[in-house]
């Protein structure tokens, strides 16, 4: 019995202000609180709250046959709690239905998997704790930031105790194989659940193609056509697709409302969460990834964040600072705050804004960016990092931050 696995990504970064070189040493409030608040409130009103309501009704009407999965970053949860607590409550309400799974990821939506395994593991663990606290269940399936995936990442995720991991169903990796089956990480028991990017992008990018909007019955019929040739169809989407990227007037929320019924109208099909699918389906084989993949841009690789010199140098700088925090027992308040800032600066969005790709990809990057250009983004980020580094370097002189220079005085 084939199933649709619907999964939504929820993320909001702490965007930086237009921090000038002349702010260095003068002020240390790097994040644009007003902007972040305004965006979070807007997205909550347009997407999180109304779309959650649609999902909740669909779950009730289908008597639990409709299921979805979310991954919600720590930075998104924190900002919801601060600026739109009703949005966070509506996610908690969904969690109580038992039909909604919450996946693991990095708390800060960072690229730490590519730079610092130890930091990566720490952020995953922070995020799992948060999910358990907010939604009552510890994640058992993992999705890495922006679906970044390689064989190494797959292997590491298994060691961290996850049952399955999500990845992009990239053509050049799959070759003749179909994305619509469960695979396995090479030499491990960890399951590999792939995104069907064609069907996912039909909603994300082509919903309003050709004047009219996509109808739920047409879309469901495309899924039903796969009968006999699919075990699991992964539809992985940014949650903001519903109401923010496509406004409500486009009919996107009505589409979401009708979709469960349309899919379930064929008796053969059902919905499945990633964990259910990983438990129910056995892998058809191992799948080795010859390269680093992601769900971003036309190349579906790491180039959205590591495509130019500015991005690579900025990432190098921020991960060089790891030596300040790793292997240290951090109890001190100022130290904790410094580490928190360091982690917020790791959020992948900062590098995404620095992308200089042209045309199609570039337009998507600019759509999300609070900066006028990739260069403005780089300059603000560099200024912030410079001030942050100077603050850390100054630390030994102040007793509260002495630990930065001297290392831990107390071993746990």
């Amino acid at each position, binding site marked *: 019995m084939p199933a649709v696995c619907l999964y939504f990504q929820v993320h909001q970064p702490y965007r930086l202000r237009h921090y*000038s*070189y002349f702010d260095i040493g003068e002020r240390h409030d790097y994040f644009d609180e007003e902007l972040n608040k305004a965006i979070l409130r807007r997205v909550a009103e347009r997407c999180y709250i109304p779309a959650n309501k649609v999902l909740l009704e669909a779950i009730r009407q289908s008597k639990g046959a409709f299921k979805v999965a979310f991954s919600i970053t720590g930075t998104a949860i924190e900002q919801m709690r601060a600026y739109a607590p009703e949005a966070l409550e509506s996610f908690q309400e969904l969690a109580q239905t038992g039909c909604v799974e919450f996946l693991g990821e990095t708390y800060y939506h960072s690229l730490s998997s590519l730079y610092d395994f130890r930091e990566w593991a720490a952020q995953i663990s922070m995020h799992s704790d948060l999910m358990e606290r907010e939604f009552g269940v510890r994640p058992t399936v993992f999705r890495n930031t922006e679906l970044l995936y390689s064989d190494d990442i797959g292997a590491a995720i298994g060691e961290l105790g996850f049952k399955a991991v999500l990845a992009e169903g990239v053509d050049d990796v799959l070759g003749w194989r179909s994305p619509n089956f469960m695979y396995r990480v090479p030499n491990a028991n960890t399951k590999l659940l792939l995104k069907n990017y064609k069907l996912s992008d039909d909603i994300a990018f082509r919903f309003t193609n050709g004047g009219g909007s996509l109808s739920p019955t047409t879309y469901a019929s495309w899924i039903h056509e796969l009968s006999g040739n699919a075990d699991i169809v992964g539809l992985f989407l940014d949650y903001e697709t519903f109401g923010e990227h496509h406004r409500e007037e486009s009919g996107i929320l009505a589409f979401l409302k009708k979709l469960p019924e349309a899919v379930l109208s064929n008796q053969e099909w059902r919905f499945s969460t990633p964990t259910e699918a990983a438990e129910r389906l056995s892998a058809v084989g191992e799948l080795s990834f010859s390269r680093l993949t992601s769900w971003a841009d036309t190349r579906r690789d790491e180039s959205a964040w590591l495509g130019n010199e500015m991005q690579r*140098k900025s990432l190098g700088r921020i991960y060089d600072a790891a030596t300040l925090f790793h292997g240290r027992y951090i109890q001190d308040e100022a130290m904790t705050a410094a580490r928190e800032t360091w982690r917020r600066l790791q959020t992948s969005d900062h590098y995404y804004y620095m992308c*200089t790709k*042209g045309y199609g990809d570039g337009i998507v990057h600019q759509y999300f960016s609070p900066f006028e250009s990739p*260069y403005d983004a780089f*300059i603000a980020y560099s*200024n912030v990092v410079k001030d942050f580094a100077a603050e850390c370097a100054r630390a030994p002189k102040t007793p509260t931050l002495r630990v930065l220079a001297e290392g831990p005085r107390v071993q746990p």
Partner: protein
Amino acid sequence: MDFPRYAPYNPNTKEPAPYIREPMKILMLGWEYPPHIAGGLGTACQGLTTALAGQGVDIHFVVPQLFGGERAEHMSLFDAKRTLAVGSQDPGSAPEVAELALPVSTTRIPAFLSPYWSPGQFKEALAAITHQHVASLSPSLRNDPVARALIDGDVFGIDLVSALEHEQPTVVAGENTGGRYGRDIFEEVERFTLQVVSRFSKDDFDVIHAHDWMTFPAAVALSEATGKPLVVHVHSLEHDRAGLFLNTQINEIERFGLVHADSIVAVSYFTKRSIETHHKISGGKIHVVHNGVYSHDVASESREHKTWPEHVVLFLGRVTFQKGPDYFVEVAARVIPHIPDVLFVLAGSGDMLPVVKERVEQLGLSRNFMFPGFMKGEELEELFSVADLYVMPSVSEPFGITALEAISFDTPVIISKQSGVSEVIEHALKVDFWDIDRMADFIINALEHPELRHDLVAMAREELKKLHWDVAAVKTIEVYHDVYRPEM
């Protein structure tokens, strides 16, 4: 008449582009031509005519005065007396109409005056030229290319010198000139008009194409005399050049040309908007044709054996209100405390130079500043090559071709948002000309982070490939076709 649809043009064949009506002959009027240039106008004329000629357009280009050394093998380059530039194409002689009489009041000075001179500079130049006494020139004029060419003596004959000695020119600032132009610039314009009409109205051409206000009266007169359509090309407006001190006479001449033109070419949307706003001309007849740039190999030698300091930031242009040199100095004052080993090079001449130098001294920045004067040729190329950053803080810049030249030397650019070039270059650091803190933020970061310069240049270089003069030529030919009136 219908023109064939455009087909891709192959520059390797010598044939005219297939979309060009055969023959397409243009009479073009300009005021300066490289290497004797005072601003971007001559450079743009050279680029555009080269590309037009490359696509099979036959051009007769007339400037008031030839100085020698002009290279224009791609067309026929004349002075207003119909003397052909050495090496340029000989179109054969055309029948001359009766010489028109000059008004008595006009002094007998050839049209060598730089439209960028102030009345004071003009007077000074005349005196020095008359007596061939270079030392008497103030430093700002000593480096002025036009003055230099005149004084070097290869420009004018004995007749002129004696004529000058006998007829003392009247150099009076007009009542409304705002003190930047002598009255004689208008006499020069008038003389050019008469000469052009008398010597070129019997030529065989299809369209008249005139560059900037100095040529507009000649162009309109020629168009009226011959019935040929007129295209005027706006590289800059008096409004942009003058700031608060608008010369109403120039403004009127400009409007006269714009109103009489069958079609107007503007070098940017910025300029198009200015024309619409200041001259109340309908946007329907204004076509935007962005300038291009010819790519060339970077003179990397200068970079390699550089005796230059660690960081070089370059300003290049006329040192006038319009170009924002004062902002460049204020920005430098913000940067130097943070990057002490930086050299700010302010290259160019103009009426604000003394004020700017004084300000640099007053701020105590002399050690970090260099004023090489007006640069051209190899010196200019070396400057572009050694600069880590090119800054164009223009208050009002119709296009800003130097920014493209800087990029062609792999030098990243900071450009003001008040410029036409910011419409065509995405990969630049863009800033409002008055936002000194932001500009300083840009400069410091660009000097401290080679990766920022690297990415800017890498991307801008790609953009430059699309800004070829051939693109400008194709659009210009479209404008010609629009106004072309086939003979009945």
